[in-house]
């Protein structure tokens, strides 16, 4: 999953300090592995360099200096395209997709559309596999079937999430 895009998305709801970003990320997406603070710092540096965020102000204080990051227009556009672009269907995609859905909900974007285009992407791949299956030998078929069943599981998850979007939205924006 793309941590840069996720952090950018989190900034959309308002400027934050690096430390707050880490806390917000961990709370929503870092279920089993918290984000290292260093990674936040280096990611923000890269985003800053690319002009996707800007530093709104530096608070001098006793400890290390604290920068407040804010998202730029270019950053918003970047989040936009990222969310709209379906992920390449591959196993264990859920974390990214989940992050995307939550961010879409957080930023008031149509999460259903996101799921739909992801479904379309999955189906596209499944069609390809199905086609390959019908022309290939038994080994090919078995391999394709394996992938198909995994993709189908993802798709089921997509369906389920789509059916529960309202519930999720209520929880996320609480």
């Amino acid at each position, binding site marked *: 999953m793309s941590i840069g895009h996720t952090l950018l998305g989190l900034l959309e709801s308002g400027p934050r300090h690096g430390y707050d970003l880490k806390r917000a990320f961990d709370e929503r997406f870092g279920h089993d592995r918290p984000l290292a603070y260093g990674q936040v710092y280096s990611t923000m540096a890269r985003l800053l360099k690319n002009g996707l965020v800007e530093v709104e102000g530096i608070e001098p204080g006793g400890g290390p200096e604290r920068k407040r990051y804010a998202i730029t227009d270019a950053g918003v556009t970047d989040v936009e395209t990222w969310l709209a672009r379906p992920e390449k269907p591959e196993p264990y995609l859920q974390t990214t997709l989940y992050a995307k859905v939550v961010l879409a909900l957080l930023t008031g974007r149509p999460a259903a559309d996101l799921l*739909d285009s992801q479904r*379309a992407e999955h*189906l596209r791949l*499944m069609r390809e*596999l*199905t086609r390959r299956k019908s022309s290939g030998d038994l080994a090919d078929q078995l391999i394709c079937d394996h992938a*198909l069943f995994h993709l*189908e599981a993802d798709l089921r998850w997509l*369906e389920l999430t*789509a059916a529960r979007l309202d519930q999720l939205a209520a929880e996320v924006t609480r």
Partner: protein
Amino acid sequence: MSAETLTEPLLQATDVHKSYGRTAALDGAALTVRAGEVVAVMGPSGSGKSTLLHCLAGIVRADSGQVRYRGRDLTTMSDRERSALRRTDFGFVFQFGQLVPELTCLENVAIPLRLAGTRRRDAEARAGAWLERLEVGDVAGQRPGEVSGGQGQRVAVARALVAGPRVVFADEPTGALDSLNGERVMRLLTEAAHDTGAAVVLVTHEARVAAYSDREIVVRDGKSRDTERVS
């Protein structure tokens, strides 16, 4: 895909509404089917997939909106005309319980031809060929009650295709089958449809079944979105 945009749509539904009492089963659904393509209709249970299929096939009349088939609007046709159209241009496969239990499988397959006026002998000869093609030639003389679910569905597919329809409507054709049998039915259906140039409108909620389609549309709360993208 410039070639596709050039092809005149075979069947096109726009802004179709259909209510049962106070339930709005369809609330502005749209769908385009081109000759020879397989379109999967997906969506959650109760979203209006079957209703959309029935409207497209002229089995029920939409409350408002248009369903154009080869330039004619189904919603303004009489019941008689629509029946005639279904007889000559459409074929159907349902989930189960669609074969006449008293007739043999062969006679079941021959029904559409006989409804269109073909002589019994010819009709049954052609039906026999289709059964062979769908790998169920051996159950021709048996009654539907005496064959397996998968065999029965393949008989139903043969019946849907026997009269050379331009569109085959299939509502959960594999719903009662295991995955192996389901895929076998789908493979035979799509291959046969491809060979005869028939388009297929396939209602399903199984992704692996939908994977046999060229394109899918999603129905949600009676609204459909055609995900046919310009890419």
